[in-house]
């Protein structure tokens, strides 16, 4: 083990070329993760609610569309958005934007199903009761159903966020300087320390994912107490 390759490049692995260049490394991985986590959660909520509230035909259409995003590998989706969208429609997505869009679409597609299932897990009697009270369907959803369903969805949100953190490493394929990409740069320059470099970034991801897991679980438990 020769850890000097890590120490010598530590700042590059953590923040990339910043402040003399774009933010990179671990910092960019965190930025990518947080933006995709928020975007995928919003998208998942909208899609899940749409699936429950929409007509059957529209629901089937939506389910097929979501099925597509769950069926293609994220690498392929990134290629499509980055290299083909501009050629087909003339829309150029920036590098970092491409990754966030791809991860949010996939994350949103998975979460959409989780949200729909969470909403459906609330007894239909509650719908009837709410409607009987004179509330509109949207009001029943907002005031009665969602407050019960959301805590039940939390585990699937947490799992999805952890997946997102790991999936940001796929930004590597289009040269976004996140942690995995700068690590390959360091590895390529040092040439003889692949074990040290890849074990180290594996550890960093491990800490990141475990921390996210623990934090989310604590929050859920705490929120669960309040909701009850």
């Amino acid at each position, binding site marked *: 083990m020769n850890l000097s390759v890590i120490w*010598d*490049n530590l700042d*590059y692995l953590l923040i*990339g*070329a910043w402040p*003399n*260049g774009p933010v990179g490394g671990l910092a960019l991985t965190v930025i990518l993760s947080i933006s995709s986590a928020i975007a995928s959660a919003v998208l998942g909520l909208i899609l899940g609610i749409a699936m429950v509230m929409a007509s059957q035909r529209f629901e089937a259409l939506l389910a097929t569309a979501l099925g597509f995003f769950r069926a293609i590998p994220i690498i392929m989706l990134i290629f499509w958005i*980055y*290299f*083909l*969208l*501009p*050629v087909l*429609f*003339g*829309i*150029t997505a920036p*590098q970092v934007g491409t990754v966030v869009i791809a991860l949010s679409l996939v994350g949103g597609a998975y979460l959409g199903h989780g949200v729909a299932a969470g909403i459906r897990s609330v007894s239909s009697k509650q719908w009837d009761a709410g409607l009987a009270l004179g509330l509109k369907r949207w009001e029943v959803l907002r005031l009665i159903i969602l407050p019960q369903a959301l805590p039940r969805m939390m585990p699937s949100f947490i799992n999805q966020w952890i997946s997102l953190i790991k999936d940001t490493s796929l930004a590597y394929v*289009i*040269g976004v*300087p996140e942690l995995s*990409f700068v690590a*390959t*740069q360091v*590895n*390529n*320059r040092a*040439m*003889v320390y*692949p074990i040290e470099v890849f074990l180290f970034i594996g550890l960093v991801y491990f800490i990141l994912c475990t921390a996210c897991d623990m934090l989310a679980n604590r929050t859920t438990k705490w929120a669960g107490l309040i909701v009850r």
Partner: protein
Amino acid sequence: MKRLISAVLVVSAVLTGVAQADRLDDIKKAGVLRVAAFDGNPPFGFVDQQSKQIIGLDVDYAKAIADKIGVKLEIRPTNPANRVPLLVSGQVDLVLANFTITEERAKQLDFSIPYFASGQQFLAKKGVLKSPDQIESLRIGADKGTTNEINLRKLYPKTVIVAYDDTPFAFTALRNGNVQAITQDGPKLVGLLANVPDKENYEIPAFTISDDYIGVGAPKGEKALVDLVNETLRELEADGRALKIYNAWFGPDSKTPLPRLFKIGDK
């Protein structure tokens, strides 16, 4: 629904229209020239450990072009396989990444006049590869999306080729024993070998299996941009800056001394 479709069509027409406007004007307007360069291939393009910036021979040429236009230079790291898609999809304005001029590529994009010449060579552990007739009996590492890979498959169809994302990956595979030789442009291999800690165990056999000219890649049909690049390259040669750039990376006092056999304008 119909309204939505027509709205999408209008929006995409507008956006495509913008993309098709003169690229040189766009660059001037944006104040930035976006160039794709290698990030792991010394001395053409690599991340400098001290400054953390991408530097190298290709970057020096890119800088000269950006200066000529009078805009800032923004370097995007690329691997070999992403070079053409980056240009075609409009993600970058130019590619300066040891980019071999070929007829097939010239159908997709435009090239400047060549600014560097090299030939395809091999790097192997000492004594493994002596002559071209051994090639087909070896497992050879190449880079995805390079002319080297395509050329090797054409000339020596029975060779087992394993293609990697970039040359240093191929070299790691060579070092680990997954492939017995790797192939690349000679100067790139010289640059790689110069940075190998145990370089005495490797060699670059003297034979070459192709002659390649390296040019600047530009989007198809951007005549004004290509003309400006060509003009810049000729000026660099005329006022001696091209020689200076060459000597900084391949000169007698550099890490990778190679005689300069090609001048801009020779071909």
